[in-house]
């Protein structure tokens, strides 16, 4: 750094002695260049002198100082005459700086600027392409209307220049001229048309940019260049790629039919058959030449023709058939459509985030839905970049994930929030997590959320609470759990958290008009402590709305708020008025006076809104002679059923803006945004894209024959400059290598048309699919260690005592009513729970723990060994952490260390008449019951017809076993697949669960036999606890065996990998290198299962299993032994 400044000063110090002093100052001061910025009249004088000197070094120095002034935003316009003289300087650096100056000030000093024009005109003829190009650049940047004709001429000439670099600059100049004088549009379009045909990758991006600016509507100019652009795309520089991809996306949406039709059954698509009128098309009228096709496009053209014939044939056949049948006609993608999708795919690998995003949006908008999945991985990769890139990418993912959850589900964990993320990133990630939440992963997510709620970043914590609210509404299985968690948060120490919870609970309660009297009562109590206006207002509204459900509390609340009315926030005042009005209508005996008092207060309030509301309410509810017919309906008006608010994502429907655009980011239409059109119902004539060789030959005569043969060489795209066949040896060598591969592939693709393309892709795709499936499975499994704590109860009691203490303050009548309603609610709730449970499991209510017991905050805490009554205790435990008692316990379920992606066949497609089913153990706590093992079943329809009503029929379960089946699937589209989850309580045995998988027409008997390792849940415990537990499980409860294997198998990572692969166990941190310990509990009975691998000398090891469940213990031992001893 200092060396730089030194260097700079040295260099300029070589000039006149006059400025030596100034340079010296800049050497001394650390921000030396500041000297340059001080604009002073006197200094300007000496700048003029320097510019007029005949030493280049002095001129250069002066120019540098002037540029410094411009950079600082200082006015240097008065130097114009002195500077412009130097435009013809021989010194290229001076020249460049003069150009910089000219471009900046020419607009202001038009007359003087004209002096420089002749210099540029001369430079435009310079043999050096660099000089030609830069002259054009500056000439076109001088915004002086008078030179428009000169610019036009220059651009025309440059567009035919031999150097692609100059042509590139010409393309840029087009835009400049257009913005200076839109009148020139027609002429400019001609030039664009010419440049679009240019084969240089250097020009392509710039000319498309010019096209987008000048005539984005002239889609017809693209037709002939479409295939060329697709083929060149990989080699265009990255910025050009972005522009071209965006343009081609728009193009594709106007030229091809929707590839989504089979999925979309929109009524808006009555889809006339894409009848190919062939020669009748209007664009074809333009070209009545005999059509010769370049070798490259010949085949695809043939393909088109064949396809057309086929279609026509088919169509004529169809003529008589019912319209409904047309839907079944297989959709054949236009080969050009396919070409675009295929050629952009490699660009997902680009290092440039903008290119990756451009391809992603292309896939999103024009690829078949089944193929869009490949973009997820690349987008997730971008999340490693700078925060700005993350911000944009996350926004786009948020939009995508609403519509197609499946795309990002495998990457769920990549969206986990880090404490170091900026808040805006955190909130976007949260948004995506919410969008991805489903029945299967919600338990994992809720655990993650519980960490977030405790974040020090309160804005983020508040957003998390809203998210929990949204999950509660979208996933009905967990809505009670979420509500409970939120209620727990009401006792949080942080007011923002409490306030947000109140607001969200209000919305939730409004959505589920169930009996939630207890929660309302609890919230009424909170009114004493909470100060955040929105929260207070929400509570009051809620009480008013449910005043008949809490008949004793509501008047009391009104009494209290009447007291504090004058000091409340306006928002709260309005709600107090509302509450008063509602109570007056329902319970006027008790509240008449109170309400009148409040109305009187409101009448004289400072805020006119409140005065208005008061007046309005008084007229409406208090009967007097003037009150009209309306007051009869007052009750209906105030206590009408209010529609529940929709908790929606702010990213919903945002994809009507093209993804990746500024408009999408801002969610408003930005200036100059080009609408993405809807797919045409009938594809325009595809033959317009055919390129005629005549024209090519004219253009490419100098290129010679070789060029025509393979005009699609991509890696080394030809530029005219190098046409003199004497390419450097190394070049041609490598070229031939890379080309042969490419050409081969291209040919193959072309010959076999669509099918070959598919097979070409299939090489990588199934693999990617597999990877995805596996990562998904991993992503799903995450538990947390804090299911069960005994200490938690302690802390809860302390909390409940505080809750009680607050109630002591309440009036005696109040507390009385409370105890009464408490018991009432208890019984109500019990019956409710029973109803739910009959379906799932009949656990005895050993402990009277209630989900909604607010008075002592006793959420269900589940000691491992005890059977629990709740619907899904593991889930409740998920949110338990929201309660502030984060304490550890000896035995707690932790996350699976590893989830093997292995799937088992449930039903082979041959025996299932086309219905195939696989199952898989996701190793996560089951949401249907804590004794159940979760099983995920993936159903595939391999037939070409819908399979309807897939459900589980008769079950044949051994004694004691339970099964929670998935909801019947209405229909499964051909080639569709769906994943459902089930819960099976195997009673800690490896007995088979047999049941029937039925469709509308058939029933198939299937079996699930669990590997013993899947009957376990991992447990996190310390080494000490492990040893203690192990000590208690000695003797009969211990089984052991010796293992002999090669030493490399005993590397700790290898052992770990092998064991967690077989069994769902948790790793116990070990102090000794030679002993590995693993702990788990059985799912059904919760018995501990302790696995120890002790490495002995030589290549032996001892495997010990301690458990009460000796049977599974020994089965597990038998399974682990061969695994560990294998190489």
């Amino acid at each position, binding site marked *: 750094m200092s060396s730089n*400044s030194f260097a700079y000063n040295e*260099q300029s110090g070589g000039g006149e002695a006059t400025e030596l002093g100034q340079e010296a100052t800049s050497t001394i001061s650390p921000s*030396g260049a500041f000297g340059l910025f001080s604009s002073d009249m006197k200094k300007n004088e000496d700048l003029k002198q320097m510019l007029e000197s005949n030493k280049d070094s002095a001129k250069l120095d002066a120019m540098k100082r002037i540029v410094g002034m411009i950079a600082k935003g200082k006015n240097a316009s008065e130097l114009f005459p002195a500077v412009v003289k130097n435009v013809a300087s021989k010194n290229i650096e001076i020249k460049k700086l003069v150009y910089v100056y000219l471009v900046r000030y020419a607009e202001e000093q038009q007359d003087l600027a004209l002096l420089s024009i002749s210099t540029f005109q001369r430079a435009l003829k310079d043999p050096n392409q660099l000089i030609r190009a830069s002259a054009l650049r500056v000439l076109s940047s001088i915004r002086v209307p008078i030179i428009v004709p000169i610019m036009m001429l220059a651009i025309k000439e440059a567009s035919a220049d031999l150097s692609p670099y100059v042509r590139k600059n010409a393309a840029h100049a087009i*835009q400049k001229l257009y913005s200076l004088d839109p009148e020139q549009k027609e002429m400019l379009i001609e030039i664009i048309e010419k440049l679009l045909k240019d084969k240089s990758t250097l020009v392509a991006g710039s000319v498309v940019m010019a096209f987008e600016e000048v005539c984005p509507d002239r889609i017809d100019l693209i037709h002939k260049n479409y295939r060329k652009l697709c083929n060149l795309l990989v080699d265009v520089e990255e910025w050009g790629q972005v522009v071209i991809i965006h343009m081609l996306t728009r193009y594709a949406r106007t030229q091809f039919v929707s590839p989504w039709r089979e999925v979309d059954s929109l009524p808006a698509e009555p889809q006339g058959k894409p009848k190919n009128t062939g020669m009748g098309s209007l664009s074809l009228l333009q070209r009545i030449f005999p059509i010769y096709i370049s070798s490259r496009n010949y085949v695809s053209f043939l393909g088109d023709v064949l396809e057309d014939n086929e279609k026509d044939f088919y169509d004529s056949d169809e003529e008589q058939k019912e319209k409904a049948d047309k839907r079944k006609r297989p959709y054949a993608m236009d080969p050009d459509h396919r070409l675009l999708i295929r050629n952009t795919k490699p660009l997902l690998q680009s290092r440039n985030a903008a290119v990756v995003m451009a391809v992603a949006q292309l896939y999103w908008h024009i690829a078949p839905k089944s193929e869009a999945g490949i973009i997820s991985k690349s987008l997730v990769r971008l999340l490693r970049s700078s925060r*700005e890139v993350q911000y944009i990418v996350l926004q786009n993912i948020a939009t995508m994930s609403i519509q197609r959850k499946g795309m990002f589900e495998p990457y769920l964990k990549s969206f986990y929030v880090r404490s170091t993320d900026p808040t805006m990133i955190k909130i976007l990630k949260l948004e995506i997590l919410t969008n991805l939440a489903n029945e299967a992963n919600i338990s994992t997510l809720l655990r993650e959320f519980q960490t977030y709620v405790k974040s020090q970043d309160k804005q983020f914590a508040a957003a998390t609470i809203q998210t929990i609210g949204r999950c509660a509404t979208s996933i009905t299985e967990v809505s009670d759990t979420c509500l409970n968690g939120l209620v727990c948060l009401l006792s949080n120490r942080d007011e923002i958290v409490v306030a947000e919870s109140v607001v969200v609970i209000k919305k939730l309660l409004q959505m589920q008009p169930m009996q939630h009297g207890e929660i309302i009562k609890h919230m009424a109590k909170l009114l004493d402590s909470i100060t955040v206006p929105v929260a207070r207002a929400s509570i009051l509204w809620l009480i008013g709305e449910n005043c008949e459900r809490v008949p004793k509390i509501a008047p009391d609340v009104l009494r209290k708020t009447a007291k504090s009315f004058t000091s409340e926030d306006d928002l709260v005042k309005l709600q107090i008025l509302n509450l008063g009005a509602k109570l007056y209508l329902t319970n006027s005996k008790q509240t008449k006076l109170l309400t009148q008092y409040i109305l009187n207060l409101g009448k004289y309030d400072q805020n006119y809104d409140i005065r208005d509301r008061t007046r309005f309410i008084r007229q409406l509810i208090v009967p007097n002679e003037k009150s009209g017919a309306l007051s009869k309906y007052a009750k209906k008006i105030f206590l009408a059923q209010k529609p529940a608010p929709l908790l929606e994502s702010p990213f919903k429907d945002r994809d009507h803006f093209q993804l990746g655009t500024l408009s999408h980011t801002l969610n408003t239409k930005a200036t100059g945004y080009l609408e993405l059109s809807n797919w045409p119902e009938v594809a325009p004539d595809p033959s317009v894209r055919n390129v005629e060789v005549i024209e090519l030959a004219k253009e490419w005569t100098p290129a010679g024959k070789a060029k025509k043969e393979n005009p699609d060489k991509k890696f080394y795209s030809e530029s005219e400059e190098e046409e003199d066949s004497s390419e450097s040896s190394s070049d041609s060598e490598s070229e031939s290598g890379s080309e042969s591969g490419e050409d081969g592939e291209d040919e193959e693709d072309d010959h076999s048309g669509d099918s070959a393309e598919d097979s070409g892709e299939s090489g*990588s795709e199934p693999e990617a699919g597999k990877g995805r499936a596996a990562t998904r499975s991993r992503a799903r499994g995450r538990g947390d260690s804090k299911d069960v704590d005994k200490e938690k109860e302690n802390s809860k009691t302390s909390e409940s005592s505080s809750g009680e203490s607050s109630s002591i303050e309440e009036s005696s009548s109040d507390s009385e009513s409370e105890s009464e309603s408490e018991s009432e609610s208890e019984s109500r709730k019990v019956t409710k729970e029973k109803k739910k449970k009959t379906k799932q499991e009949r656990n005895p209510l050993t402990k009277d723990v209630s989900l909604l017991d607010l008075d002592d905050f006793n959420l269900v805490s589940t000691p491992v060994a005890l059977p629990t009554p709740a619907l899904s205790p593991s889930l409740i435990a998920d949110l338990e952490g929201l309660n502030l008692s984060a304490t550890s316990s000896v035995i707690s379920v932790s996350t699976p260390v590893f989830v093997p992606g292995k799937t088992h066949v449930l039903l082979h497609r041959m025996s299932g008449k086309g219905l195939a089913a696989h199952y898989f153990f996701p190793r996560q706590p089951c949401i249907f019951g804590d004794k159940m093992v979760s099983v995920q079943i993936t159903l595939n329809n391999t037939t070409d017809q819908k399979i309807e009503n897939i459900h589980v029929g008769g079950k044949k379960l051994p004694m004691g076993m339970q099964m929670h089946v998935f909801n019947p699937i209405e229909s499964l589209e051909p080639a569709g697949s769906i994943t459902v989850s089930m819960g099976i309580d195997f009673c800690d045995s490896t007995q088979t669960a047999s049941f029937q998988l039925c469709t509308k027409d058939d029933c198939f008997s299937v079996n699930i036999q669990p590997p013993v390792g899947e009957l376990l849940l991992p447990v996190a415990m310390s080494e000490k606890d492990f040893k203690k537990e192990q000590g208690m499980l000695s003797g009969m409860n211990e089984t052991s065996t010796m293992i002999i294997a090669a030493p490399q198998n005993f590397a700790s990572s290898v052992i770990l990998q092998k064991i967690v692969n077989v069994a769902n166990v948790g790793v116990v941190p070990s102090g000794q290198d030679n002993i590995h310990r693993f702990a788990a509990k059985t799912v059904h009975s919760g018995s501990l299962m302790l696995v120890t691998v002790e490495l002995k000398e030589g290549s032996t090891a001892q495997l010990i299993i301690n458990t009460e469940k000796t049977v599974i213990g020994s089965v597990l031992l038998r399974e682990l032994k061969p695994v560990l001893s294998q190489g």
Partner: protein
Amino acid sequence: MEEVTAATQRKMIHSLFLINCSGDIFLEKHWKSVVSQSVCDYFFEAQEKAADVENVPPVISTPHHYLISIYRDKLFFVSVIQTEVPPLFVIEFLHRVADTFQDYFGECSEAAIKDNVVIVYELLEEMLDNGFPLATESNILKELIKPPTILRSVVNSITGSSNVGDTLPTGQLSNIPWRRAGVKYTNNEAYFDVVEEIDAIIDKSGSTVFAEIQGVIDACIKLSGMPDLSLSFMNPRLLDDVSFHPCIRFKRWESERVLSFIPPDGNFRLISYRVSSQNLVAIPVYVKHSISFKENSSCGRFDITIGPKQNMGKTIEGITVTVHMPKVVLNMNLTPTQGSYTFDPVTKVLTWDVGKITPQKLPSLKGLVNLQSGAPKPEENPSLNIQFKIQQLAISGLKVNRLDMYGEKYKPFKGVKYVTKAGKFQDNQYQLGS
């Protein structure tokens, strides 16, 4: 499609302002008509609203313009946009500008930019024409505009020659725009650094919530002529998701899993990759941690111990632990058994520079935490961010098999180096004492 009537002024990037942390606009460049500095007021407004610099939205909409900004090295690069443009396009470009400054001046700081304002201006002029990127490859730029060096300035001042090249850079016209022609070295060398970072989140129980390996291969190639290199791996299947420097032949990778390329001259990033998440990620360190606060007291105890875990027999070094303590913490009085620590009472950041771990004695940091009296004790303990480095190890197990050179006759000197680092490594391993 509708006819676009008026001449919309589609400039990708209209103007650029560089703003330092104290809100001074110290450089401006316009590619079209001049936009007044006052447009930055909208930016300052947004900056004020955001709690910290990290939270200034990258895209801001103003009545007549859109502002897209990046924050790099304590500077804001604020670009003025007039019409629809992919925001990532601008963001990526601005980062490229900052990279170029970094490359030219060794740092991208206010002082460096001010000292080299003329070169900065010349660079911006070459990088963007009419708001559209023109030359962004550092190899080409360096031919157009020579980076400042002491020697060259001395020579220039004597001979009167300049910093600006007067011939068209060869790269711009050849098929390989990233390489200049006629490169000559006396010692021909090619070095590759395989750098892997572990991103992980570890939860309270010490189990890994999320772990992933992100890697890059940075190359330093000083080879004469036009060498054609191919680099192959022992286990290329490990690379799950790869992004390439434009020089890499995508097809060769697809078909043979070999990186085949004509390299740029000098330093560049060859690929970056992610290791497929099916593989179990070994976590090389563990942290035992406890922070406890006494109820109704203004102090608490703090205790961290670090130990090695699955380190493949290599030494873990350069360990740093950073903790963002809760706001109520006033000061910390700690004793490290090793290394040194600092606590900044303003930002509440505790940094413990541990150094190496020796398995004989595990480093720990213990002591007292002073809390603001009267304030409620922190409800959640902070998470730890851990940095470390392991030399000579790529934690994913990735191994370079061989490097072959074609197209040139000489024998180059080749070298590969492996490093593993902690990336975003976050440990939430805290229990709250009661």
